């Protein structure tokens, strides 16, 4: 993945880099990209999941019926959870809503937060990058395997391989940088997925939400959580009063503890340690070492 990062400096432009000074974004500018997921037109066919695996050359093991029963997966879900070799997963939930029984489907993968918790938590310079188009990507060559990206993620997305390297959706950055749409979008048969500039996607999403409201889905919402600065995947959720039932957090945000340990605590640590070194040094030069009898000789008894 490192070639992408290197190429990205000129090719895609970098917006943020983990544990590194913010890049100068005045040189290049590129508008934010997004994928609009219109759940109201999703039929749950999982073609996007298949296309994702095909494009990324992933072969997650197929679950046996026994495994499916054991793990209590309701209905149609292919796997219980994301895996290092499964970047996206269609999640299915059955719930009672105000409009009666509903089958809630969610396309679940990295959300490409514009304020990425993984990038903020990552201590290794350059291991997580965000391109100017908003896409968040990992660079395994710079990753030390500390798993802090999972700790920082508000959506519980990164999954680790046997070397503790994280894997997740990379928004098909290789396709996108070549002018193609992501594999999932390309394959979607119902145009539930749309790819384009974020501004346009927000506009289109809002139109669909308004139409849904007219059709009686009073709680329909456009899911673009502000707590993480908005996301690269935005969702039209017909049952906006059941966000959690879509397996999405209702108010995702970067946890206060992360800001605490990346900010004030690091400063405090610097002061405490340099302070201790300076204090020891001052003791040495002001009073000198604490010598026996102040340095005077005494005869052994």
């Amino acid at each position, binding site marked *: 993945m490192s070639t992408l990062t290197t190429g990205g400096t000129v090719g895609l432009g970098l917006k943020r880099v983990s*544990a*590194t000074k913010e890049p100068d974004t005045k040189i290049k500018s590129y508008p934010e990209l997004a994928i609009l997921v219109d759940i109201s037109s999703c039929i749950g066919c999982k073609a996007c999941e298949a296309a994702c695996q095909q494009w990324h050359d992933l072969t997650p093991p197929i679950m046996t019926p026994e495994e499916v029963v054991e793990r209590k997966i309701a209905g149609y879900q292919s796997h219980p959870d994301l895996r290092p070799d499964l970047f996206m997963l269609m999640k299915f939930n059955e719930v009672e809503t105000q409009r009666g029984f509903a089958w809630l489907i969610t396309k679940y993968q990295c959300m490409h937060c514009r304020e990425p918790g993984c990038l903020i938590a990552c*201590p*290794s*310079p350059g291991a997580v990058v965000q391109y100017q188009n908003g896409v968040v990507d990992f660079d395994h060559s*710079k*990753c*030390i*395997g*500390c*798993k*802090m990206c*999972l*700790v920082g993620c508000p959506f*519980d997305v990164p999954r*680790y391989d046997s*070397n503790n390297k994280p894997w997740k959706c990379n928004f098909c950055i290789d396709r996108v940088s070549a002018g193609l749409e992501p594999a999932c979008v390309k394959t979607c048969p119902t145009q539930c997925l749309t790819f384009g500039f974020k501004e346009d996607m927000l506009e289109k999403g809002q139109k669909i939400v308004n139409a849904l409201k007219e059709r009686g889905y009073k709680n329909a919402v456009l899911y673009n959580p502000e707590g993480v600065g908005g996301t690269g995947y935005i969702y039209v959720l017909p049952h906006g009063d059941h966000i959690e039932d879509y397996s999405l957090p209702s108010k995702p945000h970067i*946890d206060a*503890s*992360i800001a*605490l*340990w990346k900010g004030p*605590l*690091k400063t*405090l*640590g*610097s002061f*405490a*340690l340099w*302070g*201790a*070194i300076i*204090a*020891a040094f001052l*003791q*040495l030069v*002001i*009073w*000198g*070492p*604490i*010598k*026996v*009898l*102040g340095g005077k000789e*005494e005869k*052994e*008894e």
Partner: protein
Amino acid sequence: MAVGSTKFPGEIERFSALDRILHWASAVAFLYCFFSGIGIAYPKFSWLLTVLGGGEFARWLHPWAGVVFSIGAILMFLKWARNMVLTSEDIAFLTRIKAYISGKHEELPEAGKFNGGQKLYAWVVFISAFLFFLSGIAMWFPENFDVGLVRWAVVLHTLTFIVAGAFTVIHIYMGTIGVPGSIWGMIGGKVSSTWAKFHHPKWYKEVRER
């Protein structure tokens, strides 16, 4: 019998071989954790990771070194905790620490085998090892814990580092150039009688009376 006094009349044993091995095993493990932790937490010091075997290796060894340190701390606790109970004299020592560091020795209460500062550091080590271990386990296996818990474990790990790290800087200074002669207690185990009488008069008397 004064320990070793027949052979070396001017020296008395301060730390047994087992004490010394425990101390240095814990010390080496702690220092590895200390420097690799700084390298991981502070990008400006990520070059430390290169020195310690590379980022991936340092991140792999850090928790194992932590386990060694934790075991060392437990054993040191079992062996030394009784000697480390803080008395009112130790509190008096700590409140008048300025007299100690400025060489006005005579103003302070006589110290036993360990003075108030050493006892305080011992408790910093015992307690920090416990907190490092608890929070470290959550950070080592974040998938197996509630993510909210892991996030605050990082905060706890950092806070513990700040206290234990600053105290350790002082400990290393005092054990080497700050208090000349004390290093031999941990290297070879014997200190000069003069040193013992001056820095730990009560302990010196106890040893002599034995």
